[in-house]
């Protein structure tokens, strides 16, 4: 068992969601406000008790100021690191450190977007790529998928199996946005966007918000909800633009994963349920390989076997993921919330029985930034 001082030092004690799918007329800050309200109610804290704020989004260049002002809080610790979609999981690590160090007592992690019904945010065009009319992010992920297919013989059918498994999970989640039946043939027949990725290989575009509350472990024990502990968390990054990625078939999750497992004193075989940031179907294949859940090049056959779908041996994205549940631009916080729901045992029809260890993995940029978090119930301490 790892004795890393962060292991089990902080826990998630409240979660909130708002505006899942469509929230016409609401700003991203409105949605954050709703999610934060529910997260604090869930945790049994008042807004005035929040003294640590961790937030990033695609609308505010100074997110901690905009969100803090909206919420009317003046946190002692404010962290607005933005490395893309993984940011909100990465924030959990820095919140745990600040809590353990006594820098703050109640850390709030929150995100929101109205990208589907609101005005779209200005794009962040990478230099030396946008001039060639790459249609990012899809083009970048398509290039990675094409390379994976070239090197390992991965097929479009195998990629489609990721989307179908996500849909099968979404059908068990009443909060999921896309719940209609979906087959491999449907995915293969859907409109091609950037070969080999068709529209059903791509995540949803929805509204939505999420929030989390963390406290030190000793504060977490006697609250309304069973605490879910952060056992390990690590981040890694390799590039910003896809042409600068050293190997299109290996992400920095190959570094963040082993470090997170080491901090937790656990291994992939100990994980009961995985939440992998599935902006595109190829992501799940890459992360299963990079995080050590199968051999390199073997993820295609693994997902095609049904292992990640309901009833499979390796449940992945039990909320329906970014492909079928919700994807308001930065999905990381939703992966983390679903991991917590599973460890609380409150995931309803999609509950993994007896789940004690969950992995939530976030991805940012063009497969650029990766954060792996390992969570556990009190029994894992």
């Amino acid at each position, binding site marked *: 068992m790892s004795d890393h001082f962060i292991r089990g030092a902080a826990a998630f004690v409240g979660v909130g969601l708002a505006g899942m799918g469509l929230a016409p007329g609401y700003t991203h800050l409105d949605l954050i406000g709703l999610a934060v309200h529910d997260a604090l109610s869930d945790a049994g804290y008042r807004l005035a008790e929040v003294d640590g704020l961790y937030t990033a989004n695609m609308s505010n260049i100074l997110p901690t100021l905009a969100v803090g002002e909206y919420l009317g809080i003046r946190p002692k610790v404010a962290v607005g690191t933005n490395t893309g979609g993984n940011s909100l999981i990465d924030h959990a690590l820095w919140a745990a450190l600040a809590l353990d160090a006594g820098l703050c007592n109640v850390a709030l992690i929150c995100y929101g977007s109205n990208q589907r019904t609101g005005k779209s945010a200005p794009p962040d065009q990478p*230099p*030396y*790529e946008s*001039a*060639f*009319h*790459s*249609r990012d992010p899809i*083009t970048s992920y*398509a*290039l*990675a998928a*094409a*390379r994976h297919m*070239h090197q390992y013989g991965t097929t479009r059918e195998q990629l489609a199996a990721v989307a179908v498994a996500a849909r099968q999970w979404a059908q068990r989640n009443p909060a999921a946005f896309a719940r209609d039946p979906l087959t491999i043939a449907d995915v293969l027949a859907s*409109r*091609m*966007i*950037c*070969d*080999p*990725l068709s529209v059903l290989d791509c995540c949803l575009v929805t509204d939505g918000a999420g929030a989390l509350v963390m406290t030190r472990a000793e504060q977490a024990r006697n609250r309304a909800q069973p605490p879910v502990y952060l056992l390990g968390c690590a981040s890694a990054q390799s590039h910003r*633009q*896809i*042409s*600068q990625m050293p190997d*299109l078939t290996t992400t920095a999750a190959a570094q963040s994963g082993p470090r997170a497992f080491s901090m937790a004193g656990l291994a992939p075989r100990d994980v009961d349920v995985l939440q992998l940031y599935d902006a595109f179907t190829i992501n799940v294949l890459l992360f299963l390989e990079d995080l050590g859940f199968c051999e390199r090049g073997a993820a295609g056959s693994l997902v095609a076997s049904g292992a990640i779908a309901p009833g499979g041996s390796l449940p992945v994205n039990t909320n329906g993921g970014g492909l079928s549940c919700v994807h308001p631009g930065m999905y990381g916080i939703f992966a983390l919330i679903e991991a917590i729901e599973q460890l609380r045992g409150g995931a309803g029809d999609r509950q993994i029985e007896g789940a004690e260890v969950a992995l939530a993995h976030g991805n940012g940029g063009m497969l650029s930034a990766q954060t792996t978090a390992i969570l556990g119930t009190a029994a894992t301490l």
Partner: protein
Amino acid sequence: MSDDHAEASLGAPGAAFEAFLKAGDFRLQCCRACARQIYYPRTLCHHCGSKELEWRAVSGRGVVYSTTIVRQKPERGGDYNVAIIELEGGARLLSRVEGIPPAEVRIDMPVTAFISTTNPIPLVLFRPAQKTASL
């Protein structure tokens, strides 16, 4: 070469790269310390950290590292290729392979660079390499 010290007067790396292209000259920075190619233009070597860089002409020969077809309605210009090219010297560029239908671009295909000046800024694009006559 007489232009070893030319970079001092070229200003920012991006502007220098563009100025060379406008003159029909495809050059990339090369690190004097570790001898590796640098792309995109920078003020220091992203391989070793040295600031001792020089602009060297490149052959323009490379291979397709990965490729995709960006789908677009015919009335908006139709489908087009986007690819990552690995140059002979090791640098990788995002670009397009033109001159053949996008569906015919393949990973590992040999390509040759050309400079397109039809855009506001000149672009390095690629076409399939001419097959060398051999018996």
